[in-house]
C-alpha cells in the first residue's frame, strides 16, 4: 500500500521509544549509582532476496526502504560524581568495577555501591537486604566499622582501642559491561560467570572503595535536553510524513467522483 505511511510509522515508534529512554535518564538524574542508557538507531532496509549472489546488489532491484529501527539501548558505565556524605555506612566505588551481592535466589548480582546495613544475622549487606558475596560477619559488640580504600573492613570492639580486621571486600570487573543486563533497584547481572573477574580494589584496574561517599548518576542534563529537543522535532517531522501519506491516499480515493 502506501509506503510513506509505514515508513513514517516506524519513525514515530522509534522516536517515541527514544523519548522514553531520555525520560528515564532524566527521571533518574538523582538516583545514586544510576548509569544512563543511550538509544541507538539504525536504518531498516529489507534484505536482498539472494544474499549469496555477489551481483545481486548491482543489477537486481535495490532493497526496499522500511524506515528506522531502535536497537537495544546501551548503558554508559562511566563514573558518576562522588558526593561526600560523611555517613560511615555509605560506600562508593571510585573507578571501574562492582561489588557482588548474593541475591535471594542464590545468584550473584552486581552493585555499584550505596548504603550498607548490618542484617539481624550479623552480616554486612546492602540497603536492600542482600548480603555481600564476600561474606563479612560483624560480631556483636563491634562498632565503628571502617572500610579502607583497599577493601579491608575493620571494626572496633568494646574495650579495645585498636580496630580489628573482620573481612575484605573485593571489587569485580566485567570485560564487556555492554553485556550486563540491568535488574530492578540499580543491580546488574552478568550473562556468564566467566566474564566476571574479582580483584582487590586498586589492583588490575579495579576502582577504589570510598567510605562515607555516595556516587551520583552519570546523567548529563544538557546532553539529555539536546537529545530531547531533537527527538521531539524528529517525532513531529515523522507525523508530517504520515499526514502527507494520508493526503496522497485521500487524493487517490477522490479520483473517482
Amino acid at each position, binding site marked *: 500500500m502506501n509506503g510513506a505511511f509505514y515508513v513514517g510509522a516506524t519513525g514515530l515508534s522509534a522516536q517515541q521509544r527514544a523519548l522514553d529512554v531520555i525520560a528515564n535518564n532524566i527521571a533518574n538524574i538523582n538516583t545514586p549509582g544510576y548509569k544512563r542508557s543511550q538509544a*541507538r538507531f539504525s536504518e531498516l532496509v*529489507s534484505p536482498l532476496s539472494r544474499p549469496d549472489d*555477489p551481483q545481486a546488489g548491482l543489477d537486481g532491484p535495490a*532493497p526496499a526502504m522500511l524506515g528506522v529501527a531502535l536497537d537495544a539501548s546501551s548503558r554508559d558505565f562511566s563514573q558518576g560524581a562522588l558526593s561526600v556524605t560523611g555517613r560511615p555506612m555509605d560506600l562508593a566505588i571510585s573507578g571501574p568495577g562492582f561489588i557482588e551481592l548474593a541475591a535471594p535466589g542464590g545468584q550473584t548480582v552486581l552493585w555499584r555501591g550505596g548504603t550498607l546495613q548490618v542484617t539481624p544475622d550479623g552480616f554486612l549487606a546492602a540497603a536492600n537486604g542482600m548480603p555481600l558475596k564476600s561474606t563479612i560477619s560483624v560480631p556483636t559488640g563491634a562498632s565503628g566499622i571502617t572500610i579502607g580504600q583497599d577493601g579491608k573492613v575493620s571494626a572496633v570492639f568494646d574495650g579495645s582501642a585498636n580496630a580489628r580486621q573482620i573481612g575484605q571486600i573485593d571489587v569485580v570487573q566485567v570485560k564487556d559491561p555492554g553485556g550486563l543486563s540491568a535488574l530492578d533497584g540499580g543491580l546488574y547481572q552478568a550473562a556468564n560467570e566467566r566474564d566476571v573477574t574479582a580483584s582487590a580494589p586498586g589492583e588490575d584496574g579495579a576502582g577504589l572503595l570510598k567510605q562515607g561517599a555516595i556516587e551520583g548518576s552519570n546523567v548529563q542534563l544538557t546532553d539529555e535536553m539536546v537529545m530531547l529537543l531533537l527527538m521531539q522535532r524528529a517525532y513531529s*517531522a515523522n507525523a508530517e510524513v504520515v499526514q502527507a501519506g494520508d493526503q*496522497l491516499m485521500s*487524493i487517490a480515493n477522490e479520483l473517482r467522483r
Partner: protein
Amino acid sequence: MGSLVDIAAAVLSQSERRVELAGQNISNVATPGYKRRVSFESFLSPDAGPAAANQVPDLSPGKLTNTGNPYDFAIAGDGFFAVTAAGRTLYTRQGQFQRGADGRLETAQGFAVQAEDGGDIPLKGGVFKVLDDGTVEEDGQAVAKLALVDFTDPKAATFAEGGLLSAGAGDVQPAKAALLRQGMLEASNVSMGDEMVAMMEAVRRAEGGQKLVGVYDDLMGRVLQAFGQS
C-alpha cells in the same frame, strides 16, 4: 486520450514514491552516519523503473557529536568503514561498534568490521583504544588496523541491505585524508527543510495528477454522451 491516464497514473505513483523517500530520510534523521537518499527520477516518465533504482546516496558528511563511548567512532574527512554482510564487503560511516559474542568487533547491527588486510578483528577485552589512523590497540598493544576506504567513483555508490553502502560499479581504495575519532559519532546529513519542501511539492503534484484524471473523466463522459445519443 489513453496516454493522458497513463501520465496521470505515473504522476500519482511517482508522488507516492517521492513522499516515501522523504519519509525514509526523515525517520532516519537521528541514525548516526546515515546518508540521505536523493531521487533522480525525471518528472514525467511513465516507464521509470522502481523508485529504488533511481536513488543515490548523498555522500556529504554530517556533523560530528561527542558521545564519550569508546566504541563510538566518527570519520573526519572522506572515508568509510568496511564491514561484511552476507558474504559481501559493504561500507558505512555509522561507527557504532560493539564486541560481539565471540569477541570480534562488529557494528550495532552485528556485521563484522573488517581490518585493513581483510578479515575480522578479534578483541580479547582489554583496554580498547583506536588511534586516528585506524590502529586498534588493546592494553597498549597494536592488534589490527581498521580498514578505512574511499570510493574511486563516488557517483557509482548505491544503497545495499542493512543500511550499508556498496561501491556499485566502482571500486574502493584506501582513504587518504581520513582521520578516525574515537568517542564521537557522525550525525545524519538529512536536511529537514529539503525533505519537507519535497514532500509538499510531491503532494501538490499528486493533486495536479488528480486534476488530469478529472479532466480525462469529464471529456470521456461527454464523448460517450454525445455518441450515445446519436
